[in-house]
């Protein structure tokens, strides 16, 4: 058994998701995107991607993701997917804005090539909000068609939702809308104040302000029988909903970018920073990864509520963490 060190953990290569950021080019410019113009010109050469995937496969990896940017606009994506499938990668994930899947033929080719984990960033539940965020008047219609095409081919994408100043109050409705098209798993991600978006302070509100909308999404999900989990907010900021807080380490993601290779939760846009008062919390350096650094810098630790052992009833900290 071959293992990889991811942060403080040793992980069997067979469980590692090799998340290759094949390039940052994109077909839209969302208003919260953190990718700078300079980064958008960074693309990994196909030969380099293949070499990295061949090495990981030789060590035992069977899970790969092709991220970006928008990976579906890269002409070599589907040949890379086929190549990965033929090499023995069994799980092939592509996160996307889903615009390209609006072409039925492309959706068919994507499925035929071997993509079997589709993730779609759903910006909104109305054409107007979609256009405001993504900058394309036809985006909502194209994404809807893309999701329908994938569903017709037997694939239900996972929905990724961004929590930001103009979406938090709509999260429940966004979940309900896309659940209506068959989506049954939703991840909530907090908008990041980094790189291109670092000065867009208005895009990120305190979790305490947005909590009502986040919790409403959890509740709507329960009512509809779909999964809604938060992946960027520590459990102490979502009391009573700790079971909806995902631990990024469980995904076992090794991120490979044009610039560096690292565990997902060590990324500067992942929650991995503790406030001083976290030291007294039962979750400290255990089940909780802390806060995102940019959030802590923006809003400090006022919302952080260290939890004493006697307060915890819903989750157990993993002993190996």
């Amino acid at each position, binding site marked *: 058994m071959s293992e990889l060190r991811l942060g403080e953990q040793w992980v069997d290569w067979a469980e590692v998701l090799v998340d290759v950021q094949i*390039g940052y*080019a*994109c*077909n*839209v*410019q969302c208003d919260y995107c953190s990718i700078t*113009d300079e980064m*958008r*010109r960074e*693309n*990994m*050469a*196909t*030969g*380099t991607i*293949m*070499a*990295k995937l*061949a*090495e990981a*496969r*030789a060590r035992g990896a069977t899970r790969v993701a092709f991220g970006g940017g928008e990976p*579906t*606009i*890269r*002409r*070599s994506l589907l*040949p*890379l997917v*086929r*190549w990965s499938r*033929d*090499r023995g990668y069994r799980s092939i994930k592509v996160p996307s804005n889903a*615009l*390209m899947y*609006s*072409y039925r*033929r*492309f959706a068919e080719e994507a499925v035929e090539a071997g993509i079997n984990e589709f993730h779609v960033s759903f910006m909104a539940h109305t054409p107007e909000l979609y256009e405001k965020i993504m900058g394309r008047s036809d985006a909502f219609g*194209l994404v809807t068609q893309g999701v329908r095409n994938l569903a017709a081919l037997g694939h239900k994408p996972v929905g990724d939702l961004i929590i930001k100043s103009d979406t938090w109050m709509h999260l429940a409705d966004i979940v309900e809308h896309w659940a209506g098209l068959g989506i049954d798993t939703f991840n909530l991600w907090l908008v990041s104040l980094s790189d291109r978006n670092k000065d867009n302070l208005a895009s990120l509100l305190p979790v305490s302000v947005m909590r009502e909308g986040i919790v409403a999404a959890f509740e709507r999900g329960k009512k509809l029988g779909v999964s809604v989990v938060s992946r960027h907010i520590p459990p102490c900021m979502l009391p009573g909903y700790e079971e909806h807080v995902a631990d990024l380490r469980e995904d076992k993601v090794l991120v490979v970018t044009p610039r560096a290779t690292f565990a997902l939760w060590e990324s500067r846009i992942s929650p991995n920073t503790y406030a001083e008062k976290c030291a007294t919390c039962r979750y400290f350096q255990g089940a909780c990864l802390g806060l995102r650094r940019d959030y802590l810098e923006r809003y400090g630790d006022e919302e952080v509520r260290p939890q004493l052992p006697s307060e915890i009833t819903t989750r157990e900290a993993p002993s190996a963490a």
Partner: protein
Amino acid sequence: MTHSQIETLDAGTSTLTLSLDTGLYPRDVLYAAAYVFLDRAYVLLDRDGSRFLVHLRGKQALDEPTLRAMAGEFENELLAQALRQRLVRANQRILEDITGLAITGAAGGSMQEETAMIDLQDSADDGFLDDPQGIATPWEAKKGALEE
């Protein structure tokens, strides 16, 4: 005090304690240097505020000159490991690329034969071949067209 120094030395018990400025040596360098001494001494690493403490106890009886020499060797090893780490970091990308290509070749078959559809040299091969609505056009290209 910013350099290393001998805190204690006892030939009777063949023990030696060195203290090191934590700002001067990364922890990985300290571990690597300590590893080199495992066959000659029992090693315990500790910390006291801003200084690392290295406790060495000889596996065989050691007199004072030998213990002092061991302290000097440990300091030299720290320097060697620090340089080694820098070189590895500087050459990591090259090593990864060479290793990756070697493994690709060793895994069987020619990459070129298997991937005739893939242009190995492309780095930004963007644009979908059958894209009547121009969805695959990168945003930068659209922006550029609008500005012209």
